[in-house]
């Protein structure tokens, strides 16, 4: 197989040596810690093998936070490198690797798992279901995502990181110009994680279509469920394109095919075309659930039903449709000619209309509401102006003719950070503050949360606002340095300082989690925010079976009505029946591991080893086909006991919202 061991571990860079040591120490620390606390069994039976949608959601969110840390470090390193002209902190190659891993990790391994995690926790509860449609498949989705993410993450210490940008355009990403194995990581790891995402999409479509509780018609679903549903539909439409494109890339890189390789008559720009056929819908997969999150939070803390529900649904549908027909706006400068560029300019700018409708609906929801300024609400408020800046600059970029000026500059980088950070990261923070009590049974501290909020929002604007002006002045993206004469230095410095403030905000968040785990009051109700949808009609944290008796619904904001009319809040002993639950399974974890191992061998082009590892995949599939486990039943007495623990508890804390 011709293994070059000297190229296996990356050596010779002090930064990477430092991380290698840190990684080894962390792993030793974790193993030692778990062993010392005798938690292996607990870890295995409660988490690794779990098929409970809430736990899977929490594991997604934890991975997302870790990946945010990794991607954020990458961002800070880049900002440090460009803080002064002609800095010699990172060299060109290292900078290339860092923006590539930053982009991939932030989008696919931070934003996606965060949102899928929140969907996992919230959607089944909101529709009054006991789990997702296919619980074990859900676990498989998670472990495939996790396997892919880990495989991608080790690239910088073992074998070398991909360095052709998160878009990995050919011809640069081909064997000819990127002979190392770095880009194999891109092709293989994203493939594995992508399968997981596709399975999640299928799972949620089926769950939302088939598992809604009695009375909840489509037009009575909470807005977050709607947006998750449409996002899942887009996942099913778009991810297969990426799957195919990555497979073709793998053939080109590993087996000498020429789909995108010019030398053999391939079409390099076809990669860009396929990538963005997936890539643009992907950004809507991210932003739609986020829109749903804001809808829930704004309505809860304005004490009003969401304004314009029907127009909200309609605008999501229009966005979903348009998101499929705008992809060329990412490569106008390829030169497809005036007809193509004009059509795609029009479709692109048209997206501003449904998005604008949604913004107005949120504003009207707040109008005359009794607004409570919780942290979740603050993030939602900050989202509006920041996202509008991102949206307006997006319309500027959307004009094909004008894009020739902005293309490939930091103006674009500023634009998409202004859409994706308010559009996804703010939403994730808002959602975490909002649904944290549902997941863990205590709220995050509001005071520390204020620090988190202000530092992050100020830091974010200070980091990315200057980039608009740098871009207009001609600073190109993906460039590791610039000259003194360019005059870029002051704005770059402001931006670098901004990124430090932003990082402090993130640490305030981490500290908040730590503080709240240690000190927050555990004595809370199922409904700490006086909220409106069904997830609040049950305990916090939620019991494994979600609802002792499935709720019935006859309109929007069902829980609000239940509280108002004082019905359905209590449960009679006679209503309690045995509940059928799916059994835990180690198979999804096993599949994640073999996929990861097979992928690793494939990255290094050790084909025989990869083939042997792939036998494990087949074995797993066969095992699953003959697995007739029927699950188990929770007896009535146990349910009664669990229910009496959280219902009618005296002296609950109600004063989180000051």
């Amino acid at each position, binding site marked *: 197989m011709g293994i070059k061991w000297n190229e296996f571990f990356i050596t010779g860079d002090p930064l990477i040596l430092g991380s290698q040591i840190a990684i080894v120490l962390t792993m030793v620390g974790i193993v030692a810690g778990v062993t010392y606390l005798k938690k292996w069994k607990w870890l295995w039976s409660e988490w690794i093998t779990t098929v409970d949608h809430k736990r899977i959601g929490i594991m997604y969110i934890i991975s997302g936070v870790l990946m945010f840390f990794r991607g954020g470090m990458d961002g800070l390193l880049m900002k440090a490198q460009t803080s002064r002209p002609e800095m010699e902190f990172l060299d060109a190659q290292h900078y290339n690797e860092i923006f590539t891993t930053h982009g991939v990790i932030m989008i696919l391994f931070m934003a996606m798992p965060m949102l899928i995690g929140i969907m996992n926790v919230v959607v089944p509860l909101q529709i009054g279901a006991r789990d997702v449609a296919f619980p074990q498949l859900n676990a498989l989705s998670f472990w495939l995502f996790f396997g892919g993410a880990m495989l991608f993450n080790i690239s910088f210490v073992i074998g070398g990181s991909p360095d052709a940008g998160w878009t990995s355009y050919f011809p640069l990403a081909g064997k000819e110009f990127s002979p190392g194995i770095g880009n194999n990581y891109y092709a293989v790891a994203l493939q594995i994680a992508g399968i997981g995402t596709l399975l999640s999409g299928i799972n949620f479509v089926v769950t939302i279509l088939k598992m809604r509780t009695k009375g909840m018609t489509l037009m009575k679903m909470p807005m977050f469920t709607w947006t998750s549903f449409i996002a899942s539909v887009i996942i099913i*439409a778009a991810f297969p*394109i990426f799957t195919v494109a990555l497979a073709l890339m793998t053939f080109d890189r590993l087996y000498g095919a020429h789909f995108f390789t010019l030398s053999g008559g391939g079409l390099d720009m*076809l990669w860009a075309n396929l990538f963005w056929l997936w890539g643009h819908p992907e950004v809507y997969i991210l932003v739609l659930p986020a829109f749903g999150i804001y809808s829930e939070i704004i309505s809860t803390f304005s004490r009003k039903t969401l304004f314009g529900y029907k127009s909200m649904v309609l605008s999501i549908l229009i966005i979903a449709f348009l998101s*499929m027909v705008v992809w060329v706006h990412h490569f106008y400068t*390829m030169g497809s000619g005036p007809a193509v560029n004009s059509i795609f300019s029009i479709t692109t700018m048209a997206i501003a209309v449904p998005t604008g409708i949604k913004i107005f609906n949120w504003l009207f929801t707040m109008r005359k509401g009794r607004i409570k300024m919780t942290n979740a609400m603050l993030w939602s408020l900050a989202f509006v102006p920041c996202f509008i800046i991102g949206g307006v600059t997006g319309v500027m970029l959307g004009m094909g003719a004008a894009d020739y000026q902005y293309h490939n500059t930091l103006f674009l980088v500023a634009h998409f950070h202004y859409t994706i950070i308010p559009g996804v990261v703010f939403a994730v923070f808002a959602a975490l503050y909002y649904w944290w009590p549902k997941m863990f049974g205590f709220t995050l501290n509001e005071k520390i949360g204020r620090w988190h909020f202000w530092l992050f929002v100020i830091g974010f604007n200070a980091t990315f606002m200057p980039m608009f002006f740098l871009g207009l002045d001609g600073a190109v993206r993906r460039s590791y340095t610039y000259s003194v004469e360019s005059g870029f230095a002051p704005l770059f410095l402001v931006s670098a300082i901004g990124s430090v403030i932003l990082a402090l905000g993130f640490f305030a968040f981490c500290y908040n989690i730590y503080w709240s785990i240690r000190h927050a009051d555990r004595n809370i109700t199922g409904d700490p925010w006086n909220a409106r949808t069904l997830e609040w009609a049950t305990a916090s944290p939620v019991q494994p079976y979600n609802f002792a008796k499935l709720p019935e619904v006859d309109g929007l904001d069902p829980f609000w009505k239940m509280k108002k009319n004082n019905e359905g809040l209590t449960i009679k002993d006679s209503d309690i029946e045995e509940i059928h639950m799916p059994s835990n399974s180690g198979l999804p974890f096993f599949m994640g591991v073999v996929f990861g191992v097979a992928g690793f061998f494939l990255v290094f082009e050790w084909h025989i080893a990869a083939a042997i590892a792939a036998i494990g995949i087949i074995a797993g599939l066969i095992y699953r086909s003959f697995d007739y486990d029927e699950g188990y039943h929770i007896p009535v007495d146990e349910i009664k006991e669990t229910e009496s623990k959280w219902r009618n508890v005296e002296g609950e804390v109600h004063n989180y919202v000051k």
Partner: protein
Amino acid sequence: MEKHTNRFPISHVLGFIFSLILTFGAAFIALKTNLSFKVIMWIIGTLAVLQAGIQLFMFMHLREGEDGKTNVINIIYGVFMTVVIVVGSIWVMSAGHATH
């Protein structure tokens, strides 16, 4: 979970064999014959459409849906996606300077 059918999944096996034949057939025609470029394109294009049909009927339960409306929506959506991806790509890649 409750109902395991013991019926042999004949249509799945047949579908699987057909897809293999069509796939290898396409590869053979493209790589091992001396037909002109145009003829090859037509043949493998036809095989691709047949392949899609087999997938839809043998695996995608196209005939089984009780719910007609859902099926119609699904089919329209599928056709829309196919047109966007295939026709869209051909148009984008062949218009303007991109091909020169």
